[in-house]
């Protein structure tokens, strides 16, 4: 197709607005603390958090590890739990969507277990796994597996029925229809699941570490509370937020590459 390169300009105001909004947020936050609108024992100013971050890069006090180690421990737990959630939840959801037998067996059990919040599993988890890596991974897995199953299931159920008929006129078997039609057309929903599951995993990570841990970002927040150090609490929260956002951007990039044919 013939085309010529043109530059499409975004209005300046639309470029400036996001920057302005973030800046205003931090300035107001800083001023609230500096002018004692909020007492320093209740909230730390952004500048304090920033300087604590620099200190914590090398100083393990007062919570026993540098920020990097905390982040690394959390990332390990979250990633193992997340990958297991994807590895088990997505195939299960996809199969449930297409094969009536799998749906019949798995759906009632899934619907029973689904409404139990992962944090309610913490006591049992401690009986089973102790407070090591396994227990936390299990809690994170529980949080992540639910959206994986639901999205994959719905994605397959939403496959255009005429496309299925079309594939049948081409002599496709049930398995071939599942593989070449249902799974690709469920992909946008599956990628949605990657994002949602990640959010759930991160959330549960902090929940799991609040209760039983000696390292990790969630543990950092807990220690901040015990030691009454608001800056440590906020640093932990900001770290969880930034790491989550970074992984979100990464997934978005992968999604764009893989879904080239589906205009978004």
């Amino acid at each position, binding site marked *: 197709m013939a085309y010529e390169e043109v530059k499409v300009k975004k209005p300046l105001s639309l470029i400036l607005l996001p920057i302005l909004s973030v800046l205003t947020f931090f300035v107001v936050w800083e001023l609230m603390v500096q002018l004692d609108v909020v007492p320093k024992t209740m909230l730390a100013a952004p500048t304090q958090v920033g300087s604590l971050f620099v200190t914590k890069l090398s100083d393990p006090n007062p919570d026993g590890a540098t920020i990097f180690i905390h982040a690394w421990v959390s990332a390990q737990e979250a990633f193992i739990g997340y990958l297991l959630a994807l590895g088990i939840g997505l195939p299960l959801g996809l199969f449930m969507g297409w094969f009536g037998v799998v749906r019949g067996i798995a759906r009632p059990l899934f619907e029973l277990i689904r409404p139990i919040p992962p944090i309610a599993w913490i006591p049992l988890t401690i009986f089973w796994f102790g407070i090591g890596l396994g227990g936390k991974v299990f809690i994170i897995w529980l949080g992540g597996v639910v959206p994986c199953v639901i999205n994959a299931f719905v994605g397959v159920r939403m496959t255009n029925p*005429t496309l299925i008929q079309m594939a049948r*006129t*081409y*002599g496709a078997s049930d398995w071939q229809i599942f593989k*070449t*039609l249902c799974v690709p057309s469920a992909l946008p929903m599956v990628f949605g699941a990657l994002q949602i599951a990640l959010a759930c995993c991160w959330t549960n990570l902090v929940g799991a570490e609040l209760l039983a841990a000696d390292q990790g970002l969630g543990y950092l927040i807990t220690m901040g509370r015990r030691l009454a150090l608001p800056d440590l609490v906020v640093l932990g929260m900001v770290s969880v937020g930034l790491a989550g956002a970074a992984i979100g951007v990464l997934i978005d990039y992968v999604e764009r590459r893989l879904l080239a*044919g*589906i205009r978004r």
Partner: protein
Amino acid sequence: MTPKIECRNITKFFIQKGKQRVHVLEDISLEVRDKEFLVILGPGQSGKSTLLRIIAGLETPNEGSIKLDGQQIAGPGPDRGLVFQSYMLFGWKTVMGNVELGPMLNGVDKSERRRIAQRYIDLVGLNGFEKHYPHQLSGGMKQRVGIARAYANNPKVMLLDEPFGQLDAQTRYFMEKETVRIWESEKRTVLFVTNNIDEAIYLGDRIVTLKGKLPGRMHEVYDVELPRPREHTDMKFLQLRQQITDASELVL
């Protein structure tokens, strides 16, 4: 000579909202000859798409039988290639990926199915667009992909369900010419459903008309004995057009 497709006394009902029985087709009998271009012409709501879907094996008739090469039809199969009005391409596959679908599903190895697909992509005039995705193509080009995909599966019969219904008048006219060109360069038995009289006369060896409003019934069969390529302004073309129009107005 035995007919390629033989429909005998087909009657079809649909059950709607669980309890309403809709009578769609009543006593349809027709034969399609080998390598023939047969057009089924009928207004909206005459059950012509349902008839095509029954022949494709996607619906089962309540009464009557359909035979392909003397064999009873039971369900859809690769011996009948269906081209849909709404294209029905895989949005996540390129033109090449869509056209090679049939051979791929039947386990043809990659280089061989690429060769087959390329041949039909060239035949429908999409050379150079192999790596494009459906959303990057115009309506006419999408339907070319649909036709190439059906051809690449090497069906005995091509079933086209109002394939140009979504196209603008000019593109439609052009695609009709292309359809004749493609059919003449590689003849298959074609069953073409349309609601457009000009399209029917331009394309068909024979035209079967259905009476409008459900249930659809057989009306007339016309032999189109005009030389190809046909001209819409040819005197005989216009006479036949008048004849069909007059006959269908009697029904309405």
